[in-house]
C-alpha cells in the first residue's frame, strides 16, 4: 500500500464512498428513463387514476394496483404493527435480559426466512382456511395482509426494541418513584420517549410490505380490481411488474417500468420519512 501513499488511499476511499449513492442514482436513472417517457405519453393522471388494465388493447390504468398496494400495506400494518409493538414492549420491559438475549435473535430470524416460504405457507395453510371459513377464492387481500403482517414483525419488533432500550433508565425510575405502576410508566413515559423509533420501525415495515413481490403474487390471487371486501383477490404494484414483465414487449413493457417508477418514488418518499424519524431518535439519545 506504500506504493499508493496516504493521499492515494484517501482518494480511493473517497471514490468508493460514492458507490452506494451512485448505485442509487443509476437505479433511478434506468428506471426513470425506461418508465417516464411512457408516463408522459400516456398521461400521469390516466395512468394513475384509470382502472382499466388491458395491455392487449392498450389500456394501462394502474389505479386498482395502487389501491391494492395501499390496502395490502394497510392490512399488513393492522396485523403486524400492534403485534410487533406489543411484542417489543413486552420483551424489553417484562422479560429478563437473559431470556431476551435468546428471543430477540430468534425473532430476527423470521426476517431471514425467504419470503417465498411465507408465501407458500400462505397458499397451503392460510388460503384454504379463508376459503372454507369465510368464503371467496381464499387467495385474497386478507391472506396477503396476514402473510405480510407476519413478515414485517421482525422489522417492527427489533427496531422498536432498540429504541425502547435507548430510553434512559432514569426516566423509568423517576416515574416509578412517583408511584406509577410499571404499565403506567411504560405507556406514559417509556413508549412516549421511544415514539419516533417505534414509528420509524412501522414505516420501515410498511416499506417492506409495499415492496414485497413473490409472496404477494402467491397469496393475493392477482385480479385486476379495486377490492370491495378483504376476501377479494387483488394485485399489487409489485405483483403487476413481476407477473407480466417476462412476457411484455413494447408499450406493455414500458408500462410495467412506469409501474416501477411509481413504486420507486413511493418508496423513496416513505423511506425519507422513516430516515428523518430515526435520525430524530438518534439525536435525542
Amino acid at each position, binding site marked *: 500500500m506504500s506504493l499508493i501513499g496516504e493521499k492515494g488511499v484517501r482518494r480511493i476511499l473517497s471514490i468508493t464512498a460514492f458507490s452506494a449513492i451512485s448505485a442509487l442514482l443509476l437505479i433511478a436513472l*434506468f428506471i426513470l428513463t425506461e418508465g417516464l417517457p411512457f408516463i408522459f405519453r400516456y398521461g400521469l393522471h390516466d395512468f394513475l387514476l384509470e382502472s382499466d388494465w388491458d395491455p392487449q388493447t392498450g389500456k394501462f390504468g394502474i389505479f386498482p394496483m395502487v389501491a391494492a398496494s395501499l390496502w395490502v400495506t394497510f392490512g399488513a400494518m393492522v396485523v403486524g404493527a400492534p403485534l410487533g409493538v*406489543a411484542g417489543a414492549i413486552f420483551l424489553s420491559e*417484562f422479560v429478563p435480559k437473559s431470556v431476551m438475549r435468546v428471543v430477540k435473535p430468534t425473532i430476527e430470524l423470521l426476517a*431471514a426466512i425467504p419470503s417465498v416460504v411465507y408465501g407458500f405457507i400462505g397458499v397451503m395453510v392460510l388460503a384454504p382456511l379463508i376459503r372454507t371459513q369465510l368464503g371467496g377464492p381464499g387467495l385474497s387481500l386478507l391472506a396477503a395482509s396476514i402473510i405480510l403482517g407476519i413478515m414485517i414483525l421482525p422489522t417492527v419488533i427489533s427496531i422498536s426494541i432498540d429504541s425502547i432500550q435507548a430510553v434512559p433508565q432514569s426516566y423509568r425510575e423517576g416515574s416509578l418513584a412517583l408511584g406509577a405502576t410499571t404499565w403506567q410508566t411504560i405507556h406514559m413515559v417509556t413508549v412516549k420517549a421511544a415514539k419516533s423509533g417505534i414509528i420509524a420501525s412501522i414505516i420501515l415495515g410498511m416499506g417492506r410490505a409495499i*415492496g414485497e413481490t413473490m409472496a404477494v403474487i402467491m397469496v393475493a390471487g392477482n385480479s385486476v380490481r379495486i377490492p370491495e371486501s378483504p376476501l377479494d383477490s387483488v394485485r399489487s404494484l409489485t405483483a403487476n411488474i413481476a407477473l407480466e414483465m417476462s412476457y411484455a414487449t413494447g408499450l406493455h413493457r414500458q408500462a410495467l417500468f412506469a409501474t416501477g417508477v411509481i413504486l420507486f418514488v413511493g418508496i423513496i418518499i416513505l*423511506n*425519507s420519512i422513516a430516515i428523518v424519524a430515526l435520525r430524530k431518535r438518534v439525536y435525542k439519545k
Partner: protein
Amino acid sequence: MRIRPRYTQWLAVTILGGATILTLAVLVFIIVFVLEKGLPVVNFGFLFTNAEDMGRAGGIFTTLIGTIVLPLLAIIVAAPLGISTAVYLTEYTVETRATKIIRFGTDCLAGIPSIIFGLFGFIFFVTTLGLGWSILSGGLTLAVMILPTIIRTTEEAVKAVPKSYRQVSFSLGATRWQTVKRVILPNALPGILTGIMLGIGRSIGETAAVIFTAGSSLRMPSSVFDSTRTMAVHFYILAREGISSENAYGTAATLIIAVLAINLTAYWMMGRFIAKRS
C-alpha cells in the same frame, strides 16, 4: 368508573404477553411446518445429485451451486466497496453535506424493494451491458442490493473501536491508513463479518431480483456468463408450479437450515465481538 391501575397493569401484561407468545408461535409453526415436511427428503443424494425432469426427480445440486456462487460473487463485489465506504465515512471525514448525502443514499438504497433491483439489473446488466441472464448479472445485482447492509454494519463496527486505540497508534507515528489497516479493521472484523453474513443471508433468500437477472436454468453453469438457479428460485418454481411438493419442501428445509446456520454464525460472531469489547 375508573379501572384500578393494578387491573390495567394485569390486563396490559396479559395482552402484551399474549401478543409475544402469538408471534413466537407463528415463527415456530413456520419453521416446524417446513422442516417436518422437508427434512425427510434431505439426504446426501438429494443435496449432491442434479435435478431431473425440471426438478420433479433427482436432487438440487446445481441449485446448491447457484446458491453458493451468486452470494459469493455479490460479497466479493460488495464487501470491498462497502467496507471502504464505511471506513471513509468514519475515519477520513467529519460530518459534511457530502457524508450526509452518502448516508441518506445508503439508507434509501436499503429500502428499495427487490423487484426494483430486479428491473434495474435486468435493464442494466442483462440488457444494456449485454451480460444476459447470468451469474454475473445476478451477482452484481445482489451486490448492489446488499451494499447498504455492509456499509451500515461496518460503520457501527468501526465506530465501536475505542478512540484510545487510534490515539495510541497515531502517537506511535502510524499514518491514518496504517492505523486503519493494523488497528481498526482487525478490531472491527467480527462486526464486519456479521454484516457480510447478513448480506449473504439476504441474497440467499432473494427471489424477485435473482429470477430477473440470473434466470432460472437448472443446468450446471460452466462460467459466470451462464444462467443459474438458486435454491430460493428453485423452491418458488417447484412449489408454485406444483412440480414436486416433496422436493419443494426438501429445498425449503435445506434453505432454512442454511439461513439459520448463517444467522447463528453471525450472532455468535457479534456476541464474541461484544464480549471482547466489554
